[in-house]
C-alpha cells in the first residue's frame, strides 16, 4: 500500500512534468549557467584551479536543487493540489516519499548533464571511477533532497517562502555537501584513497538515514494545520 | 530584535575580517604537543592582553545588549497590554 501510494504520487508528478518539461529545462539551464559562471570566474588561461571541480559540481547541484524544490512546490501551491494530496486517504509519509523520489529523479537527471560539463570545463577526471561517483552522487542527492522536500513542503503556505527555503536548507544540508565534496575530491585525486572515500561515503549514508528518519517522523505533524 | 540584527552584522563583519586575515596566513600545522611560548619565532609572539580584554568585554557587552533588548521589548508589550486592558474595561463599562 505504501509503495503503491509512492508510485501514484511519482507517476502524477512525472505525467505533469512530461507535458511541459518546464521545471526540467529551467533547472537544467540554471545549473549549466551556474557552472559557466564558475568557469568564467575561476578558469585562468585555460587552466582550472586545483581541486575546484568537486566543489563546483556540488554547488551547482545545491543551487539547482533549491530551485527545483521551490518550483515543484510552487506548482503544488498554485493548483492547491498539496491540500488535495493531504486530504487523500493516504499515509502522509508515503506522500512525502513519493515527492522525494520525484525530486531525486529530477536532480539525478540534471547531474547526468552537469557531470560531463564540469569534467570538460574543469579538466577533472570524473569518469575514471563511474561506480564510486554514482554512489557519491546518489547518497548526496538523497540527503539533500530528503531535507529539501520536507522544508519546501512545509514552506508552501509560509510568507517569504522563496528566500526562506535556502536560508533554512543550507545550514542543515552543509554536512551533506561537505561530505559529497570531500568524497568527490578524493575520487579526483591522482591516487584514489579508497579508505578515505569509504569514510566519507559512510558519513553520507549516515546523514541520509538520520535525515530521512527525522523527515518521515515530522512530515505528518508539520503538514497538519 | 534590531539590536540583535545589529549584533549579527557586527559579528558577520568580524568573521569576514577574520576570514580575510586567515586567507593570508600560512596553513597551521597539527599540534601534537604544546611548545613553550618563548621558543616560538618572534613574529608569532602576540601580546595576549588585547585579545583577553576583547574577549571579556565582548561577552559583557553582548550579554548587556541582549538584556536591554529583551527589557525594551517587554516594556513595549507591557504598555500595549495595559492600554488594551483599559480600553476593554472602558468598553465593557460603557
Amino acid at each position, binding site marked *: 500500500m505504501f509503495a503503491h501510494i509512492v508510485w501514484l504520487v511519482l507517476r502524477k508528478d512525472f505525467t505533469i512534468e512530461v507535458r511541459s518539461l518546464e521545471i526540467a529545462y529551467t533547472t537544467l539551464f540554471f545549473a549549466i549557467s551556474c557552472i559557466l559562471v564558475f568557469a568564467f570566474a575561476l578558469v585562468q588561461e585555460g587552466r582550472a584551479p586545483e581541486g575546484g571541480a568537486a566543489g563546483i559540481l556540488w554547488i551547482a547541484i545545491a543551487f539547482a536543487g533549491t530551485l527545483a524544490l521551490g518550483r515543484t512546490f510552487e506548482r503544488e501551491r498554485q493548483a492547491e493540489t498539496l491540500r488535495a494530496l493531504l486530504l487523500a486517504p493516504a499515509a502522509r509519509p508515503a506522500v512525502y516519499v513519493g515527492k522525494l523520489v520525484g525530486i531525486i529523479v529530477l536532480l539525478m537527471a540534471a547531474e547526468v548533464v552537469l557531470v560531463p560539463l564540469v569534467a570538460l570545463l574543469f579538466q577533472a577526471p570524473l569518469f575514471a571511477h563511474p561506480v564510486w561517483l554514482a554512489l557519491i552522487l546518489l547518497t548526496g542527492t538523497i540527503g539533500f533532497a530528503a531535507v529539501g522536500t520536507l522544508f519546501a513542503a*512545509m514552506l508552501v503556505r509560509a510568507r517569504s517562502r522563496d528566500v526562506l527555503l535556502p536560508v533554512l536548507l543550507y545550514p542543515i544540508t552543509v554536512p551533506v555537501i561537505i561530505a559529497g565534496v570531500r568524497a568527490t575530491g578524493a575520487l579526483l585525486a591522482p591516487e584514489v584513497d579508497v579508505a578515505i572515500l569509504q569514510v566519507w561515503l559512510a558519513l553520507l549514508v549516515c546523514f541520509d538515514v*538520520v535525515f530521512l528518519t527525522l523527515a518521515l517522523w515530522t512530515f505528518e505533524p508539520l503538514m497538519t494545520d | 530584535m534590531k539590536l540583535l540584527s545589529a549584533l549579527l552584522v557586527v559579528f558577520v563583519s568580524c568573521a569576514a575580517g577574520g576570514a580575510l586575515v586567515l586567507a593570508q596566513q600560512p596553513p597551521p600545522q597539527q599540534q601534537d604537543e604544546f611548545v*613553550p611560548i618563548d621558543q616560538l619565532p618572534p613574529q608569532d609572539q602576540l601580546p595576549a*592582553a588585547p585579545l583577553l580584554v576583547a574577549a571579556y568585554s565582548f561577552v559583557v557587552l553582548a550579554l548587556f545588549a541582549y538584556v536591554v533588548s529583551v527589557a525594551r521589548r517587554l516594556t513595549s508589550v507591557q504598555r500595549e497590554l495595559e492600554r488594551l486592558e483599559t480600553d476593554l474595561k472602558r468598553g465593557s463599562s460603557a
Partner: protein
Amino acid sequence: MPNWFIPLAVVCALMFATAPILIANAPYESTMGLVQKIFYVHLPSAWMFLLGAIICGMASVRFLFRGDPRQDRLAWAAAELVVLFGVLTLVTGPLWARKAWGVWWQWDVRLTASLMGWMVAVAYLLLRKYGGPGSEKLAAGLALFGMANVPFVYISVNYWRTIHPTTNVVPSLPTSFGVPLWFSALTFLLLFVLLLRIRVRLEEQRARVDTLYLSMDA
C-alpha cells in the same frame, strides 16, 4: 514573574561580580599563558549554546506532537539564547585561537558544525519573524534538525583530527583551574535560566495581547 526570579538575579549578579577575582587568581596555563583565561568564558558559553539547542529541540518536539503553545514559546526563547551564546562562543574562541593556534579559524569538524548549528538558530529566528502565520510548526521542524547537530558537535572533537582540545580536558582539570571554571559555568547557567524565563515571559505577554485583540474583535 515567579518568586525565585529576583533572588536568583541577585545571586547571579553577585557571582558575575566575584567571578573575575577567581579567574584572575587562577594559575597561568604553562603553554598558553594569559590568553588561556578566555577559557573561563568560552567553555561555559559553548555549554549554554549546546544546552539551548537541546532545549529548543526538545520543546519543538513536544510542540509538534502535542501542540502545547507553552512549548513553542520555550522553543523560541531557547533559540534566541542559542544565537546569543553561539555568538559569544564563536567570538571568544577565535580570539583565543589567534594566540594559541596562530590562526583565527580552522575548518575542522567541531568549528564547522558549531557554526552551522548557530546558523540554523539564526534561520529559526528569521523564520519566526518573517514566515507569517503557521511558521511556529515549521520552525519547530527546523529546530529538530538543528538539535540532531548537537551531539555531533560535542563528540566530533574526539574522533576527527583537529587542533581544538578534546573533551578529555575538562574531566582532567586540576582543582586550581576547575574551581573558577565551574563557578563560571554555574554563573552562566543561572544567567541562562534567568534570560530564558524573561524571554518566555515576553512571549506570554505577546500571547495575552493577541487574545485580548481577538476578544475585542469578537
